[in-house]
């Protein structure tokens, strides 16, 4: 088995195993240092980011909202984790020169052309739908897919299967046809 992939990346099984070790280390570190076990996740941070942004224009509205109250609008462990993902990806891609300014990805371009506006609209609308779904299901491929599956949670097994099932059907409907 090759340790490097054709695009200069690391073998995905190896990188994945390291992420598994990171998840264990992180669970231990948060339990011992913070007194509360935190599992890797990402989507709740988007709720907190929305709350922080809304709070700057309508503080009362955020304070009165049940969901913001439930998820607590603050810069917590997971918020910084998500910020860290940006820094880690930047460092890694700069160090092996895989950093690339990309306005429109190739598969998208084959189907919808090189318009940045179309891509922006797709990403934005897709983002809205995906996040409403992730909050309803109470997790995303990090929270359910990684952390929930590591704990063998029932909800995570169902969620992960449906993330992929629904995603595969949608992707085939959207991208399988080539642009004329």
């Amino acid at each position: 088995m090759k340790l490097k992939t054709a695009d200069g990346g690391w073998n995905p099984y190896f990188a994945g195993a390291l992420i598994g070790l990171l998840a264990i280390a992180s669970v231990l570190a948060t339990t011992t240092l913070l007194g509360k076990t935190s599992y890797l996740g990402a989507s709740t941070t988007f709720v907190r980011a929305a709350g922080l942004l809304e709070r700057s224009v309508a503080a009362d509205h955020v304070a009165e909202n049940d969901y913001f109250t439930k998820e607590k609008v603050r810069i917590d462990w997971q918020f910084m984790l998500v910020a860290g993902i940006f820094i880690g990806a930047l460092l890694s891609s700069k160090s092996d020169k895989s950093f690339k300014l990309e306005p429109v990805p190739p598969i998208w371009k084959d189907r919808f052309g090189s318009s940045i506006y179309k891509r922006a609209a797709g990403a934005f609308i897709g983002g809205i739908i995906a996040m409403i779904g992730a909050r309803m299901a109470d997790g995303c491929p990090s929270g359910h897919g990684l952390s929930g599956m590591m704990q063998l949670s029932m909800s995570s097994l169902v969620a992960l299967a449906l993330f992929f099932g629904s995603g595969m059907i949608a992707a085939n409907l959207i991208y399988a046809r080539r642009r004329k």
Partner: protein
Amino acid sequence: MSIEQILGLITGIIFGFLLQKGRVLRFEKQIGALLLKDMTIIKLMFSAILVGMVGILILSDAGVIKLSHKPMNLGAVIIGAILFGAGWAVMGFCPGTSIGALGEGRWHAFFAIAGMVVGAAIYAELYPFIKSTVLSWQDFGKIGIAEAVGVSHWVVAVVVAVVFGLMFRIFEKRNI
């Protein structure tokens, strides 16, 4: 910054670094997996689950940590996950990878992130309605697969390992 925030940041930097090295952040890999053409993200995700699962189950058995199952709220998980999958296919990122993709220069991820923040804000407004409808239908609570089936979680872990192993074999045979 508090210890909590510093710890989150350090963990996130390593997480982002590994996700980038594994080449799973970009649109091509996410959609490649959904089109069954490039299973890199599944290989990485399932390897992480296998390693993490063993450690977390041992720590839980030893009483060092407490498991934190997310609620098996039937309607919410099913409808939410289906919506997520559809949005994911259009966006080409999931919440965690969108931030990483921005970090490696794929700046169209910015629009995905903006959409997700708006989606979170919409969900917060819809929450009272969702709480009285979808969330109130049928909640099985915070249960593990092992409890639901009535076996030790190590039995479930072995089944998961065998299934993932067979999937890895298929991916490698088909070179996807």
